[in-house]
């Protein structure tokens, strides 16, 4: 009896989380302009989604921005984490505390302050994309740093020393000893950076060129506008993104489970 209540509760939470998006996905396959007003099934939303130039540009732009700024953030964040980890305690504190600022700060404040510095004070035009990219790297790099640091701490320092004793240069030892051992942290930092950039609204709003839109800024403007065809085409976009996210989560889970099984098998052999 008690058990039943538990499952009813988590079912209720699941419904709260997923019902709106699933209802929207259902209506994306109809010709309805408001949900609840169902008439006929139709794929016209998907046709609009894949043939409207503006939507295609905005999706490609969002992905390019996410991959580009995540790559830069990974470079900065990883190098920063390695540098900070091998620095003196004091220097480490310096990295740690400044790195923390964008993490705990509200995105509105981060975006606004970067806009003030770069656009208002330094006069860099938003049309150059420089403020936007810098803003997204500021948003993402601290999280890469936070994903890499624990891997550095888990590492056995004597392997690096051994490589030096055996004649490797510090650069070579770093490349072939340290980097491989922290690679899982770098990869998850990169993935996190991509999701942060994709989901950002505030930093983009305050720093983006007037003619450029990310998915977030585009959708927010479209819901305020009156263009019904675009509005319902975005329902189709929700469906596509839902499927893509579900696939990525499933694939990464299955790969993780397989890696775990391999590890278990190796351990039981040893």
């Amino acid at each position: 009896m008690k058990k039943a209540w538990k499952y009813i509760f988590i079912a209720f939470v699941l419904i709260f989380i997923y019902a709106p998006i699933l209802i929207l996905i259902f209506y994306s396959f109809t010709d309805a302009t408001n949900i609840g007003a169902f008439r006929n099934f139709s794929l016209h939303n998907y046709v609009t989604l894949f043939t409207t130039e503006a939507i295609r540009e905005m999706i490609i732009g969002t992905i390019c921005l996410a991959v580009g700024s995540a790559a830069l953030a990974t470079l900065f964040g990883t190098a920063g984490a390695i540098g900070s980890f091998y620095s003196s305690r004091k220097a480490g504190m310096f990295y740690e505390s400044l790195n923390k600022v964008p993490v705990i700060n509200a995105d509105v404040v981060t975006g606004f302050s970067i806009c003030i510095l770069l656009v208002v004070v330094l006069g860099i035009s938003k049309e150059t994309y420089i403020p936007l990219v810098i803003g997204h790297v500021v948003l993402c790099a601290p999280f890469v740093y936070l994903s890499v640091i624990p891997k550095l701490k888990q590492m056995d320092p004597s392997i690096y020393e051994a490589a030096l004793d055996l004649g490797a240069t510090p650069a070579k030892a770093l490349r072939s000893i340290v980097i491989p051992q922290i690679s899982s942290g770098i990869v998850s930092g990169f993935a996190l950076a991509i999701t942060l950039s994709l989901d950002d609204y505030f930093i983009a709003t305050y720093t983006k060129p007037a003619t450029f839109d990310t998915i977030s800024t585009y959708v927010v403007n479209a819901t305020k506008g009156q263009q019904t065809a675009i509005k319902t085409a975005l329902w189709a976009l929700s469906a596509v993104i839902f499927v893509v996210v579900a696939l990525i989560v499933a694939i990464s889970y299955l790969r993780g489970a397989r890696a775990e099984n391999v590890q278990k098998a190796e351990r039981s052999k040893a």
Partner: protein
Amino acid sequence: MKTWKFSRKSLGIPYAVFLLLFVALPLLVLVYYAFTNGEGHFTVSNLTGFFTDPNTLGTLCYSFAIAAVTTLVCLLLAYPTAYILATSNLKRKQVWLLIFIMSMWINFSLRMTALKEVLTLIEGNLARYPFLNAVVGMTYDFLPFMILPIYNTISRLDGALIEAAKDLGANDTAAFLKITLPLSVPGIISGVSMVFLPAMTNYVVLDMLYNSTYIMGSLIGSYFSAYNWHGGSMIALILLAIIIVFTVATNGADDSDRAGIGGALL
């Protein structure tokens, strides 16, 4: 001339410069703008203006109320969910957890569109319940960020402690109240810090739900649209002060939980 030698320490220099230029410097500029007027003269009128105008003070209180209620609702939904998932004997708990938090990887603006459509269907006119809708919207957006850290702390709990409590005569309720709940406080704090502050500032959630009430973030947005950098900087600075107080009060909740959001996927 001394030749430059590669060292691991020097790898961090680009990031140190980056942090100074684009994290520290913007905050200094913010302070400068907050305490000057259009002619560049020092002034405290932005500060006193904020604390004497009943509108802005009202916005501050309203944001606190929305953030507090949202955090409470998230906690009341997330704690039992995380507890049930972490202590259940379901096979593949990890899959269930992923199902609960997967929604945070779907673009929030699309999720908000979905919520707006459903709420419009239920309520007819969204303007009728601005406070309720704001809380529902924020909860819908931030719930996964509360579930994940609480789940992590509960699932790491040592089950032997609970068994020991029961051996010593505690019933289920007592064991929960004396062992599980106190030991899951770090997860709760982590979750609260990831929900409370965004709920004070994330005004686009209100915008998308056709909600014309203002929270602190909306003030920055409206100063930004009016090119009033000085007024906007002061609001940003006040928010920053609130964030610092909040962070110190929660004693710098474990940052690894935030990084863990990416780790959950990989």
